[in-house]
């Protein structure tokens, strides 16, 4: 039977690769009898889902103190203008 440690590794890997049939059965059986690992899976799933929501929209990352400096903003604006002037019919 798989240990909690092995189950925790397989649960993490299941995000990155397809587990084999044997691995899935082993993990399923372990989760059926182990409440600590069930909590572990709950927490890992929650973190994964919340993180995906967090990075889905820039508004979610609330760090109002971080701002594009005026100098960098102007530099980028100039680049855009140059690019637009080089291809006036692009837009």
């Amino acid at each position, binding site marked *: 039977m798989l240990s909690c*440690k092995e189950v925790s590794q397989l649960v993490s890997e299941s995000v990155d690769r397809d587990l084999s049939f044997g691995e899935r059965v082993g993990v399923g059986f372990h989760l059926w009898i182990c409440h600590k690992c069930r909590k*572990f899976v*709950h*927490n890992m799933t929650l*973190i994964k889902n919340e993180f995906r929501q967090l990075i889905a929209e820039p508004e979610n990352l609330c760090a109002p103190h971080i701002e594009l400096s005026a100098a960098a903003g102007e*530099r*980028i604006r100039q680049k*855009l203008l140059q690019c637009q002037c080089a291809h006036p019919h*692009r*837009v």
Partner: protein
Amino acid sequence: MTDTAESSSGIDPERWVERYGNDLFRYAMAFLREEKQAEDAVQECLLAALESSRNYAGKSSEKTWLTGILKHKIIDSIRRQSREKPLDVPEILTDSLPGDEELFDETGHWFASIPSLDDPASALDKKRFWQALDKCITAMPPKLAQLFMLRELAGMDTENICQDMQITSTNLWTMLYRSRMNLRQCLEINWSGSR
């Protein structure tokens, strides 16, 4: 000089920096952590957007469209960095992370009980959860944090990550496992603990 954009497609590049500059920069900073790199990513994003503005169908908001392009530029930037400074796998795997021996006993069973993280239900709870998440990612060893973020941004495309970082899949899975365990432990302290 100040050619006004003919906004036939409904986009207005002249005002991108003013309108979205801060949001895009903030987003890039969350992944890249360095101002210079984040500025470059925003610039590359807006230039690429201008180049491909014909393809903007107006189905998503202008900001969502730009954010989508920015994600690719952030991935490019992290990949460039990792080509210049390849990961030292053994160092990262032993670097200041709790070892398995602190989590599991010799038979591989959990030492401690596992607190259940509550689903953040309200909008306010969500915001607090995300703040805790951000704090915990910032506290991770930087290279590991970057790998974790890259994995999430790039989706299932782990083969390319391995190629760029010159590591094996097994190493990648181990490092992602470490980063997730690290994040979970940090959140169990910072989220459950704050109720």
